[in-house]
């Protein structure tokens, strides 16, 4: 048998003790260790700093929104703003309920379409496709994210809406359905690629265990793999959802931009983002109208945070053993 380290002799216990303790060491080894520890500390500080920075950005944005937004309520009552559907600032009506409901409906509808499709695509990528196809599909899906939203909006306007008009018989098919279809396409890569990673990260030993019990692929995926990846899928859904909530440029091209409650999926209507983007650069800086738009930006954030919390609660309702 080979002698492992002939040069070093085991230290006496006291030596080991003192070398473990922080006693000032000597020579280069100590320097190296000190450096390692120092860099470890520094790195940790950088990480904390970065996290604080991200929070700071959010804080700044909140302040930016809120500082201007609260001025709305100097002229408009809370109840009008939140419970009236009459948005007609030229005539001093500032009811934002239409947009709030629109945002909720649009996000819900988009999630309804995109979650099942995206998760199925993720399963397809992670569990079923041959390797070569996977290597092609992943970058192509990511590519869809890089297509500017105006292109999606343009396609929506020139292809999707005429088609919807044909099948629905409406004169104008702009509205929630068109917007949610465009959004579904836009968030599909986000949800499916992040879920794909989450599913791929599930250790193979779980799959082996399930298959060895005689379960088929459907059972293994739905009962073992997806539950084990549910944390990752949840945050994929959250990121997709937030992207949908915050998307503006494409939505504004297909939703119709009419401040009225939608009585069908094909009625031109408006949501918080579309209304903000249409009007914020078109009104006077210090008008109630402008303040109201900032307030709507703030509400948008509040809604998305509420929805995030809701998704998290839903996710937690199943057991968690990871």
């Amino acid at each position, binding site marked *: 048998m080979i002698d492992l380290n002939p040069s070093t002799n085991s230290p006496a216990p006291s030596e080991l003790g003192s070398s473990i303790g922080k006693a000032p060491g000597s020579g280069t080894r100590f320097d190296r260790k000190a450096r390692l520890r120092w860099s470890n500390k520094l790195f940790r500080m950088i990480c904390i700093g970065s996290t604080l920075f991200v929070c700071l950005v959010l804080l700044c944005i909140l302040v930016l929104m809120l500082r201007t937004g609260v001025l709305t309520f100097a002229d408009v009552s809370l109840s009008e703003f939140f419970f009236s559907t009459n948005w007609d600032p030229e005539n001093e009506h500032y009811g934002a309920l239409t947009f709030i409901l629109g945002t909720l409906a649009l996000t819900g509808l988009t999630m309804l379409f995109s979650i099942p499709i995206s998760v199925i695509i993720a399963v397809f990528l992670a569990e079923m496709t041959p390797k070569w196809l996977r290597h092609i599909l992943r970058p192509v899906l990511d590519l869809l994210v890089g297509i500017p939203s105006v292109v999606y909006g343009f396609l929506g306007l020139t292809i999707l809406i*005429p088609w919807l008009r044909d099948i629905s018989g409406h004169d104008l098919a702009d509205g929630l359905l068109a917007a949610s279809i465009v959004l579904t396409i836009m968030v599909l890569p986000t949800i499916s690629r992040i879920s794909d990673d989450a599913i791929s990260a599930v250790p193979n030993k779980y799959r082996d265990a399930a298959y060895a019990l005689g379960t088929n692929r459907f059972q293994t995926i739905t009962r073992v793999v997806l539950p084990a990846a549910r944390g990752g899928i949840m945050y994929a859904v959250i990121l997709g959802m937030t992207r949908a909530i915050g998307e503006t440029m494409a939505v504004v091209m297909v939703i119709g931009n009419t401040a009225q409650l939608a009585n069908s999926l094909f009625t031109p209507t408006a949501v918080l983002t579309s209304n903000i983007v249409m009007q914020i650069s078109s009104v006077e800086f210090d008008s109630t109208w402008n303040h109201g738009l900032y307030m709507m930006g703030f509400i948008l954030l509040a809604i998305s945070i509420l929805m995030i919390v809701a998704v998290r609660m839903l996710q937690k309702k199943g057991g968690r053993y990871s």
Partner: protein
Amino acid sequence: AKSTEKGKIVINGSSALLPLTLQAASEFKKDNPKVKISASAAGSITGPQSVRKGIADIGAVDWDASKDVPGFKKFDGLVANPVAVTVFTAVVNTNVGVSNLTTKQLQDIFSGKVTNWKEVGGSDANIVVVNRKFGSGTRVNFQQKALDGKDFMSKGDNYKEVGSSGDMKTTIETTPNAIGYIDLPYVTSKMKAVSINGVAPTEKNVLNKTYKVWGIGYYMTKGQPTGATKAFIEYIQSSKFQNGSLKKLKFIPLAAVK
């Protein structure tokens, strides 16, 4: 002759004037290499507001913002420098049989009183009204000059608003029975410009003063322009530019309507 003018000019405001601004900027920079120009177009009203706030030197706007217009108070202390004449026209989808509308008919259509083409001499089909968003210079001009200041509708199943001239163009092109309005240069063969009160929207009719729906685009500055800004505005107002590039961009020179 390279000039020694230097400095930075920030331009913001109307998107309809943007092609003009960009063209002028690239020509101007050839002669004034030390001048930096950045142009953006967040929307007409943003122009004068940014100037007032001091974050832009020039605010491009489709109306004279130193005077009151419906919906917008005047901007005190800003000087309006006229730069170009723009012509506006009502446009309809090619499937619409109507090719002339009176002011009254336009008012009724855009306020939602008339909802079927047959009421204005067309076939039996619902009218789809496409409007520009509030604050658009095109909208302000069209409302003042084609609708005589009458209000637009703001709701309805067959009513939508679009954000830009490009979206208006695309929407009118692809939506049967649609009517909207647009700057004359954007009119394509895939849509139909409508005569108003029997007068066709052409440059000739503007020059002979029969067609009324046109406006002047302005560069708003804080006080009288100075330095590089002044030089730039003078360049754009120069007859070389007015009769050259500006015409090629299908705007009408200021001098022609004087």
